[in-house]
């Protein structure tokens, strides 16, 4: 389970989707918790799980892709784990923590009975060493922004460690706890170059519930129970076996032919088929859906690409008067008209089945600051859209089916990354719906790498169908704040002083009620100005074999409490018994 870095990881979205046609889905319920009916818990059994891509490394410091993080989560421990409400934490390596008098430091008391795989006890020096690597940019840890607010980490004695902060903030605990703890005795003298090519990446020494047994590239990763795990009876499962299946059709086939116990990111049609079979009582895979961590949107480039090109990035004062608004999407009414021309509910249903929630504002649904009625909702009304456009001077004088104003024709290119089938479907549907109101949109698929380097960073595009992977920290600075104008994520070139003031106030407010008011104002402002047209918020889905008990799956991920999962002896499958009495 992984708290996202403060910046919403753009490339994560792409990387996760890099392998052919792989998508996240979600369904109306918030979370799935399967109650623990039977009292007598028996250990033993094997979990067969699917990964959509091969993890590039199992070293927490250099891991980037989602699969890598999921496996690392089972091998390494953190100081504390976040709860499903995404604000409070439960103790893990640290038993308890308290803030020191001047409220700019946190003291953690560690467990003394936790050992690394090779028997060496886990001490505060490991936590101090881990911070030293995490905060050093040379090691290239992608969670670095979490640690910018931390000045020093001191290990008082073997079981207490203190984090010192520059200035107090709401997220001190979240910043301190972020990131798995690394074994100091293994990685002590490693320089960044050595670490990159170290064997540790392929044979990690961890302290978590499971440890690596075997990793066959492009095939399987096999973890076995950590014999001297501090929380003795757990983990109940003997083995967790990850099968690497990049091809979605392949994944579906294996699910249907019973070769998998757990899989996530299913296509809507497959998920519906599984749910149908489950409702009829035939299948033994229980479908699970929960609000995910992704949403899709159309980003309108508010600035004419040629004018942005000529801008000098160093002098950031009075940028507004140098930039010419986009010939099409410069005006707010045009953007509103285009939003009203799209039947977003229908697109959502076709592309995602029911695995989506409508989204009308910038605040992600799973974060505390989300207030549905704060957003201004533009309902689907093509006639109204056509009126707005003609009011803006866009008529179809030469009856060629495309509006024009003066000699500018209302035609543009909408880009998305190739290899993502559902976005390609959405693009085709949008093209069709825009054609109805006389807007000619040409869809274009571009390879992810090229999309970022050639179109997004230099902002050489008109419109972009894209998606964000939501971080658990509530902030929109890197998307719309003027301070991050030249930041790669700020590609709509949105600039508004009111937004700047509101967000500064919201982030500074320690009292949640006050912060909520500011976020509501922001939501109203952005859903009015529409730098984005938000399409839908995805509901993730997964399927878990019915024989597993005490399973918790929610937006934090699928492998949240794998240590707790167990299989009643009666329901064991043949391959569950293979490892019963082995160490």
């Amino acid at each position, binding site marked *: 389970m992984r708290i996202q870095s403060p910046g919403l990881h753009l490339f994560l979205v792409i990387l996760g989707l890099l392998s052919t046609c792989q998508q996240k889905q979600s369904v109306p319920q918030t979370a799935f918790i399967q109650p623990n009916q039977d009292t007598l818990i028996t250990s033993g059994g094997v979990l067969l799980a699917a990964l959509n891509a091969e993890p590039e490394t199992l070293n927490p410091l250099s891991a980037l892709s989602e699969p890598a993080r999921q496996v690392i989560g089972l091998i390494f421990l953190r100081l504390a784990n976040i709860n499903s409400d995404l604000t409070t934490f439960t103790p893990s390596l640290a038993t308890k923590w308290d803030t020191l008098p001047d409220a700019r430091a946190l003291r953690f008391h560690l467990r003394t009975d936790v050992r690394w795989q090779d028997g060496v006890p886990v001490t505060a020096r490991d936590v101090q060493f881990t911070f030293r690597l995490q905060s050093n940019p040379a090691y290239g840890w992608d969670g670095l922004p979490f640690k910018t607010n931390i000045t020093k980490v001191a290990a008082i004695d073997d079981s207490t460690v203190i984090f010192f902060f520059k200035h107090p903030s709401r997220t001190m605990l979240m910043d301190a706890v972020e990131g798995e703890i690394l074994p100091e005795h293994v990685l002590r003298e490693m320089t960044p170059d050595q670490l990159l090519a170290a064997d540790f990446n392929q044979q990690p020494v961890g302290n978590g519930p499971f440890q690596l047994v075997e990793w066959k590239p492009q095939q399987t990763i096999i973890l076995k129970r950590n014999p001297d795990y501090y929380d003795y009876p757990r983990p109940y499962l003997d083995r967790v076996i990850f099968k690497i299946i990049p091809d979605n059709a392949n994944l579906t086939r294996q699910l249907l032919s019973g070769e998998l116990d757990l899989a996530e990111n299913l296509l809507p049609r497959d998920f519906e088929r599984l749910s149908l079979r489950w409702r009829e009582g035939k299948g033994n895979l229980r479908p699970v859906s929960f609000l995910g961590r992704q949403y899709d949107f159309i980003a309108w480039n508010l600035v004419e690409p040629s004018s942005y090109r000529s801008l000098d990035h160093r002098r950031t004062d009075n940028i507004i008067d140098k930039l010419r608004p986009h010939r099409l999407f410069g005006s707010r009414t045009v953007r509103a008209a285009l939003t009203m021309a799209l039947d977003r509910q229908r697109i959502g249903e076709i592309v995602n089945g029911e695995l989506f929630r409508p989204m009308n504002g910038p605040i992600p649904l799973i974060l505390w600051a989300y207030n549905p009625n704060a957003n201004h909702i533009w309902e689907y009304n093509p006639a109204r859209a056509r009126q707005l456009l003609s009011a803006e001077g866009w008529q179809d004088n030469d009856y060629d089916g495309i509006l024009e104003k003066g000699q500018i024709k209302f035609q543009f290119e909408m880009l998305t990354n190739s290899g993502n089938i559902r976005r390609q*479907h959405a693009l*085709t549907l949008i093209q*069709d719906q825009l054609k109805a109101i006389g807007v000619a949109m040409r869809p*274009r*698929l571009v390879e992810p790498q090229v999309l970022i380097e050639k179109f997004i960073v230099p902002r050489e595009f008109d419109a972009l169908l894209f998606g964000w992977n939501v971080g658990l920290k509530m902030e929109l600075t890197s998307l719309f704040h003027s301070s991050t104008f030249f930041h790669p994520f700020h590609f709509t070139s949105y600039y508004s002083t009111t937004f700047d003031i509101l967000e500064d106030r919201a982030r500074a407010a320690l009292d949640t009620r006050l912060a909520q008011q500011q976020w509501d104002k922001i939501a109203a402002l952005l859903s009015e100005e529409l730098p984005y047209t938000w399409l839908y918020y995805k509901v993730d889905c997964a399927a878990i074999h019915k024989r597993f008990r005490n399973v918790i799956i929610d937006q934090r991920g699928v492998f949240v409490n794998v240590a707790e999962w167990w299989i009643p002896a009666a329901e064991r499958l043949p391959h569950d018994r293979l490892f019963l009495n082995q160490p």
Partner: protein
Amino acid sequence: MTRLQGMRHSRFWSNRNCRYGTIIVGLILLMAIIGPLFAPYDPTQQNLEQILQPPSLKHICGTDFYGRDLLSRLLHGSRISLGVSLSATFLTMLIGIVLGLLAGYFRGWLDKFLMRIVDILLGFPRLFIILLIVGISRSTLLMTIVVLAGFSWMEIARLVRAETRSILTTNYLMAAQALGLNHFRLIIAYILPNLRGMLLTSTNLLIASMLTIESSLSFLGLGVNEPNASWGTLLSQGRLDPTGAWWVALFAGIAIIITVVGFNLLGDGLNQIQSESRT
């Protein structure tokens, strides 16, 4: 037509392979030319109520993800697929013959140089180049044709070179040289006509392989982009959900196979006639 007179029409028709081959190829070309006029629906018109319907009376070949009728997409697609394959084959034959003749006729360094280029290109991993091109440029039809031709002219060049070298050793070529004819005349009047048999057969086989490769290219993302489709794109769309919508890929696959079998039959038939007429 006097030149073809040597291959009397009856012998062409009596050869079973030729007969079936011409019938199939004729039907396919007919379908490509007039098919789109008979398409029951507009191939790009989406119809969101009819998504992924299995083959039924209304939609003989069923519908795809956007509810578009697959039969009409197949008919329109045939024009694109055949167009791409035929023009790619033409380009390949052009390059292959010219370079093969040059290498075969003017021996010495030119021959060595061209053959080394062939070796290099043969060794090139095709997939790698395709993926890069998909990455770099907008994948237009022209780009697909160029890529297709770029990868298959080497075999033809080698065939033509080998055949030219064997013709150089024949008596009639030496006699022609003794007549003092210039190189151009020798190549055009003496070498090229004698390659005709081999070229006819390899053209047919080439068209067949072009169709197959075109479908793999679309599978990798290079090819026709929305909203129109070629057989290749239909195949790759079908591939995404094989367990569910089996009909999307099935009919496109069958269409490709029938066309390719047709051209192969024609190729083999011509080959038989060619070898019979030589004895």
